């Protein structure tokens, strides 16, 4: 049922996005493949049919309007939510994360948009949350080692946090985001999912994060999927861009083959199409209401009134 309207709409979009709804060609060096993922929340369809792939060492920018389904997709890949249908493959093997922990154990780590930082905990406890170092064989936290490693990791990444034993509540939005990113970078994961890593950041702090992403790309160890809002940042940081619209991928191109203009056009066209559709359906509703009123059975006539 969900796929039906998608196909009917296809001709409208043809000029802007010829690749629409075509499963991506799987390259042999794909570290992650997401195929035909769908997810509903009650009556709301968040994802209809999403195909995404990620090559090794690549930075993929994920674009899309608010509510298009970007965050849902990230949450499914990161093991926080389960898809209703569709499959995922990690290094060619079926990938079914049972939990965030499980996904992380498989090398997929996430920085969330709603900043999964814990205000009341210190910087280094946040960096090591769920990866705490213990004073084995005692089940006691090895705070000294965590502090030392945290300091080293932050220095390596080039993020300036003066004190790592203060609670993160005291830090600026940018610093918090930087720590959230550092947490994932610091892990042994080879796939990083960054959900709006540049939200709530000043220009300088944003540049720091983009530099960090660039450095990671150079190293070539990790592959990154990044949700972004700002198109210019996409062209600065990403190798390839996928655009989600209305729960499906409508564009998948290397950044070198597309432009801010093309991306903007897709969004604007979609907005116009949606508005026309809305108007059409509103008109249809009005029509049917009128028809009902004209047919006037007393119970029907009363209902559209309020």
């Amino acid at each position, binding site marked *: 049922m969900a796929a039906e309207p998608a196909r009917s709409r296809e001709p409208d979009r043809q000029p802007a996005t010829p690749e629409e709804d075509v499963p991506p060609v799987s390259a042999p060096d794909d570290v992650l493949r997401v195929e035909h993922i769908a997810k509903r929340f009650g009556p709301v369809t968040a994802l209809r049919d999403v195909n995404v792939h990620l090559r090794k060492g690549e930075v993929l920018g994920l674009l899309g309007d608010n509510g298009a389904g970007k965050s849902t997709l990230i949450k499914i890949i990161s093991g*926080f939510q389960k898809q209703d249908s569709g499959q995922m493959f990690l290094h060619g093997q079926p990938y079914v994360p049972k*939990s*965030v*922990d499980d996904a*992380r154990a498989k090398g997929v780590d*996430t920085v*969330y948009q*709603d*900043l*999964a*930082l*814990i*205000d*009341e*905990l210190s910087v280094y*406890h946040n960096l090591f*949350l*769920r990866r*705490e170092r*213990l004073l084995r064989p005692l*089940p*006691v*936290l090895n*705070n000294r080692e965590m502090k030392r490693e945290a300091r080293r990791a932050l220095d390596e990444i080039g993020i300036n946090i003066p004190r790592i034993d203060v609670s993160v509540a*005291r830090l600026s939005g940018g610093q918090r985001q930087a720590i959230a990113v550092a947490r994932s970078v610091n892990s042994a994961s080879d796939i990083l999912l960054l959900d709006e890593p540049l939200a709530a950041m000043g220009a300088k702090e944003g540049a720091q994060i983009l530099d960090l992403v660039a450095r990671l790309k150079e190293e070539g160890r990790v592959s990154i999927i990044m949700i972004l809002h700002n198109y210019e940042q996409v062209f600065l940081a990403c190798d390839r861009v996928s655009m989600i619209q209305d729960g499906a991928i409508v564009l998948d191109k290397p950044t070198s083959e597309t432009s801010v203009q093309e991306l903007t056009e897709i969004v604007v066209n979609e907005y116009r199409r949606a508005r026309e559709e809305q108007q059409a359906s509103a008109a249809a509703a009005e029509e049917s209401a009128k028809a009902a009123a004209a047919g006037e059975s007393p119970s029907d006539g009363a209902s559209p009134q309020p």
Partner: protein
Amino acid sequence: MASVAQDPASREPGGPGGSAHSRRALPGWREIGGRVIALREGSIIVITIVTAIYFSANTSTFFTGENFKTLLPYFAPFAILAAGEVFVMILGEIDLSIAGMYLFAPIIFDKLNTSVGLPLVPAVIVALLVCMVVGAINGVFVSIVGLSSFVVTLGMLFTFEGLSLIISKGTPVATPGGQPPLGTFGKVFGGGTYSELIWAVAIVVILQVVLTFTRWGLYTVAIGSNKLGAAEAGVRVNLVMIRNFTLCALTGGLVGIFEAVRSATVQPNPAGPNEILFLAIAAAVIGGTLLTGGSGTVVGALIGALFLGILKDGLILQGVQANYLLFYTGLAVIVAMTANVFVGRVRRGQTRGG
């Protein structure tokens, strides 16, 4: 408030030593004062010391070993209850059912011993296990079903106080092992003079270590501070919540048995346990644990309980009429909390500046 506490201390070394000496000594005391205030428990430590000094100065009998023994039952049981409650309150939840456990545990303990024929220690263990199961059920209702902890534990409170009335048929129960002359069991489980104090200190130390230095404690704070964030980071929120409610119920049952042994009888009357419940919560809050969650300290709860104990004991020694006791306690709690906020502001100002 802070300066009042520091003054007598800073005068002491400065007095006989001359001005040069005192100038050198002063920053040391100031530093210590600053450190104390920088602690989360700092404000209540200061307030408790001031209260103790006040009663010592105004009554000749307060600062005596004999009075210390009188003071013990006024705070040791509350310290244990508050310690468990802190673990639930840091989550941003509350457990009212501990009063139910407090009443139910000794009654079921008596039944297990006298009717079922279990020896004393196994009977205590089984009674406490029952409490822990109830706590786990609280945790399941709050974390998995998603009900408000206030509602769930209030329901449990009534249920188990009611069950206690049904099982005991409303008549007082003579606590097994609590009858004179006390055996080893009675002396260990609340009957000995220092029994509850030792339990309280041991439990508080252990739980504070758990809270500060283990993953369990870290996750407890994490959930109370940012539940969704903790879940996204991979913390098993439900598990931690169930565990903390279980712990809290356990402390409720444990203190119930201690108090039953100490007083040799169990009065199946919910009024007493209910008052104890609220004093325990007051102790935790006064000690610096937030009702909104995310922050708390077990040691603070112990000191909060000590403050309430000193207050009650001191007021009695001052000859305050029994009828006025609750009234003064109420006012003092409000004054202490206000002072707490004030000292807390000083503290935050200090740590922010430094």
